[in-house]
């Protein structure tokens, strides 16, 4: 019986390592064939902002890895609407994350689902294991 795992991301990238090391857990966890979801809220939405360029800072740009999540069957990525709006962001500012739906002739579909805080609260409540970083 597979469990529902939710990874909750509330922190900005680069200022601290939590975003990067959270992603490492998600990648390893994908091999365990559980039901995996990711939530991005508060400053966590900054993790998905596109156009990250880290060469001048001298650290590793790990944002391309989010785009690989679809290949690992991680395609339920919930982004909170209120958090985006408070930061002046819209979905257009985020990395386009997609997956190929094997139940729909491998059609390319969006992994990101824009949800309200109230919807996200219900999603959190529906999990078996919640991991926060």
């Amino acid at each position, binding site marked *: 019986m597979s*469990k529902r*795992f939710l990874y909750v991301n509330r922190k900005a990238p680069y200022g601290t*390592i*939590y975003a990067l*090391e959270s992603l*490492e*857990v998600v990648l*390893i*966890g994908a*091999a*365990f064939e*559980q039901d995996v979801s990711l939530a991005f809220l508060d400053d966590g939405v900054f993790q998905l902002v596109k156009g990250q360029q880290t060469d001048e800072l001298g650290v590793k740009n790990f944002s391309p890895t989010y785009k690989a999540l679809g290949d690992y069957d991680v395609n339920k990525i919930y982004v909170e609407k209120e958090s985006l709006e408070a930061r002046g962001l819209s979905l257009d500012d985020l990395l386009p994350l997609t997956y190929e739906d094997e139940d729909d002739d491998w059609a390319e579909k969006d992994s990101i689902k824009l949800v309200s805080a109230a919807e996200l609260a219900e999603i959190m409540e529906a999990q078996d*294991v919640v*991991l*926060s*970083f």
Partner: protein
Amino acid sequence: MKFSILVSEGPYTHEAADTAYNFTKAALEKGHEIYRIFFYHDGVNNGTRLTTPPQDDRNIVNRWSELAQAHELDLVLCVAAAQRRGIADADEAKRNGKDADNIAPGFRISGLGQLIEAGIESDRLITFGD
């Protein structure tokens, strides 16, 4: 009930390591099983035997080692996090060309899969961090 614990911060700097310890001790006292304690992020710094805290303060590392021995706890340091932060056992030291290791008794180094497995196998997984 079967609990697992995730510790995400190092000793002394954040209270997380204390709360995790106090929770674990209380759970054992209430007869629950601790399936695994997984140390991630700076949490791996709980597993160095080189600490020498002031005499009038608690010894966080020794406290873990002693609890592990008394209750046969499985204390796992994440290998990737440990490499970044300089926590090594003899095998890791050898593999990475280091001339010393610093892991404390009762801890072992393993992969992130051990955290996921703890989430699957335990009734509850509780995170303590910053």
